[in-house]
């Protein structure tokens, strides 16, 4: 295969690999192609407080995620001084903390984050098990019967039946039956259980579930109680406080299990604090897929620590800078001094922002040139001379940083990220260019390089480019294919169309 055919073959293979991976990540993992809108994410912190009695302690908390609009992303439950395990039993997931010897007030935190899938949650319409009829104390059976029958008569279905029951119990003018029934309510046997048992008394399946309403920046709220009623072969959810039916959008549910079980402690209670965040859909999709153990992502840069990821965010932009340089030099035909100097300068500009970067660069170049002109009169050998320029440049940078900091611009500090060796060589070459070709040539060459750096800067800071390179590092395959193709381009450069225009003869 000829060299050119190989290039085309590689270009095609690389493009296909790149596009297939991008499409896969886009469709299967839901990473959107464009930055798009931000999605709501929530960080919820459960705080479990109790007084340990001095012996072994075991705390079991049911984990959320029974069903809701929300998908849980991260969970973090380790607590100092406690052994931590996650207990899975059927559809019940629970966090279990245990300790051998605890005394006095204790606090355990369980943090999880979740995001709004914006899909309507669906109840699993599992057929309920055999109903166990509740057993009431003989004293109350008559009253219960009366209340249930009265509610039954004035209702049409399970929904309205529950409403009638709650209404009667909450009534301002309670009947004698109601008064009697209300006596049953104790902290151990709260209202929701009473209602559940009254519904069950009428041979209707019902269970109490817990739900947490997510609201912006709430602190120390308690979980709310809901009743799930089985009617016409479907489960229905009712909020016992508001008597609203249906699955609310903003509630995350626990299953029909006790929220908290504590052994070896008293006065246990659980409360929740939450914080709302905005996160991009891409970040969410990546995190969500990482949790699901996707192989493609498990060997990707997203598994690196956050600070390393940030380095890659910048590194992944370099190929785009190179592409711009390739286009400018081989397709447009603009000369730059030093092939990839524009990319390095653009990276420095990203740190300093463009205008400040340009000012700093010109100041450093100007002062550096002055120093270089003086050094040239000292008859130094080349490497020591350039080293002297490097040292002077470093000192200049330090000086500029301090001065700009004192003047109140923080950006002065990021100056240090300028590629100093490159700048020193630039100073050296510029000064020679100046001596041999004159100042005008210096300005035209430096101007060209700066113009290209600015172009590269705009490409590299383009939010879409930044988003895309980081979300789809696979795009590098396509980029490589493009650069390979550009390497075989033998057509005219844009500047040559004007340069050789005078050669065109009329026929």
């Amino acid at each position: 295969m000829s060299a050119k055919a190989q290039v085309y073959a590689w270009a095609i293979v690389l493009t296909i690999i790149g596009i297939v991976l991008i499409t896969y990540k886009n469709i299967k993992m839901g990473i959107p192609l464009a930055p798009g809108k931000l999605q709501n994410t929530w960080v919820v912190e459960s705080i479990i407080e109790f007084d340990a009695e001095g012996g072994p302690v075991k705390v079991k908390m049911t984990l959320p995620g029974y069903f809701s609009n929300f998908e849980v992303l991260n969970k973090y439950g380790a607590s100092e001084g406690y052994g931590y395990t996650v207990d899975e039993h059927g559809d019940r997931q629970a966090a279990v903390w245990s300790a051998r010897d605890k005394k006095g007030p204790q606090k355990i935190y369980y943090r999880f984050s979740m995001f709004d899938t914006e899909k309507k949650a669906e109840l699993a319409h599992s057929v309920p098990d055999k109903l166990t009829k509740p057993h009431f104390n003989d004293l109350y059976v008559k009253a219960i019967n009366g209340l249930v029958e009265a509610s039954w008569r004035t209702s049409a279905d399970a929904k309205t039946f529950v409403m009638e029951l709650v209404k009667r119990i909450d009534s301002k003018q309670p009947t004698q039956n109601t008064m009697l029934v209300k006596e049953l309510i104790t902290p151990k046997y709260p209202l929701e259980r009473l209602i559940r048992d009254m519904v069950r008394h009428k041979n209707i399946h019902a269970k109490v579930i817990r739900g947490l309403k997510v609201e912006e920046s709430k602190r120390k709220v308690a979980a709310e109680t809901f009743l799930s009623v089985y009617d016409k072969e479907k489960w229905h959810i009712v909020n016992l406080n508001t008597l609203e039916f249906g699955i609310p959008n903003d509630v995350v549910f626990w299953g029909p299990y006790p929220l908290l079980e504590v052994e070896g402690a008293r006065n246990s209670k659980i409360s929740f604090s939450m914080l709302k965040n905005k996160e991009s859909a891409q970040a969410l999709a990546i995190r969500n897929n990482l949790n699901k153990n996707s192989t493609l992502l498990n060997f990707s840069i997203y598994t690196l620590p956050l600070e390393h990821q940030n380095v890659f965010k910048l590194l992944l932009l370099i190929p785009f800078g190179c592409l711009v340089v390739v286009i400018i030099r081989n397709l447009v035909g603009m000369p730059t001094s030093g092939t990839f100097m524009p990319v390095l300068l653009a990276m420095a500009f990203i740190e300093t922002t463009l205008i400040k970067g340009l000012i700093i660069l010109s100041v450093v170049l100007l002062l550096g040139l002055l120093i270089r002109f003086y050094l040239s009169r000292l008859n130094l050998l080349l490497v020591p001379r350039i080293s002297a320029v490097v040292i002077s440049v470093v000192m200049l940078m330090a000086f500029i940083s301090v001065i700009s900091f004192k003047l109140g611009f923080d950006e002065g500090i990021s100056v240090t990220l300028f590629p100093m060796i490159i700048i020193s060589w630039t100073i050296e070459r510029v000064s020679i260019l100046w001596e041999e070709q004159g100042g005008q040539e210096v300005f035209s060459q430096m101007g060209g390089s700066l113009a290209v750096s600015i172009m590269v800067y705009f490409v590299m800071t383009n939010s879409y480019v930044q988003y895309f390179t980081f979300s789809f590092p696979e795009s590098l395959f396509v980029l490589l294919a493009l650069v390979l193709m550009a390497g075989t381009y033998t057509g005219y450069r844009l500047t040559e169309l004007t340069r050789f225009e005078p050669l065109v003869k009329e026929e």
Partner: protein
Amino acid sequence: MKFASPSTLRKQGILGMNARNFQFIMASNKRHFYPRVDDKMQTKNLAIEAGLAVPELICCIRYNHQLKELHDVLDKHEEFVVKPTKGCAGKGIIVVKGKTEEGYLKASGTLIPFTEMNRHVSSILTGLYSLGGQRDRAMVEKLVHFTDTFNNFTYQGVPDIRVIIYKGYPVMAMTRLSTAVSDGKANLHQGAVGVGLDIATGKAIQAVQFNKVVDKHPDTGFAFDNLVIPDWDKILQLSAKSYEITELGYMGADIVLDKARGPLILELNARPGLSIQIANGCGLWNRLSLIDGESKAKRHSDERVAFAKEAFGNK
């Protein structure tokens, strides 16, 4: 600014940079032959071996400690040129035309103190002017005494003749004449005049400054119609034969005319520029394709020159 369409340029056989690099330089210049032209010392030695005329070498400096002897050697010479062996685009060249107590005198009359000359040479050695900053040597040559041919056609500067040689065939030639605008420099984009030369005769075809055809030199006022390069056949012979010493398929030869010795190869270039097309008002591509068809048979340099004169001469 006017744009030509790529198809028109292609139809007229004008060679672009990408096509030059890809189809001609990369295809016919083997990488390992590059040092033969990138290192002027090697070029010179190869040329002397092959009996091609080059400017005479005074000495070659490789190490800093040789600097001590430099001035003793140079003591015997009034006029000489110091240049880096791996320099490009004429960078780092100093032309000395005289001497005083303190130092050397440049062509322009400026004084270069002895210490300054030492610094310059050691800069050359460290690779300041070489491609990629690699270590370099400095060579000192005897000054070429130019013929009077160009006296009326140039403002300062040293005109040389550039010949493009493809597979041993001289395909196109020009000379670059400096002007006041170009500040004595021979770069066309800085305002020097490029004069296309007839391959058959060495007569000027046309002259171009800033991409526009000019009839006479902007400073001296002499019409280019009268410009004929002497020893033209020798120049063609020299160019054609330089292919044998470098084996580079596509290259440029820079040839100067010495009053006493005639044409001398100043240097060879593996990546000659494309502005020669502008000076000639003619594209290179068709000529190169013609050679591609012709060069299958191995021919002697005389035959190649004869072929080129016949094929590319101005009719």
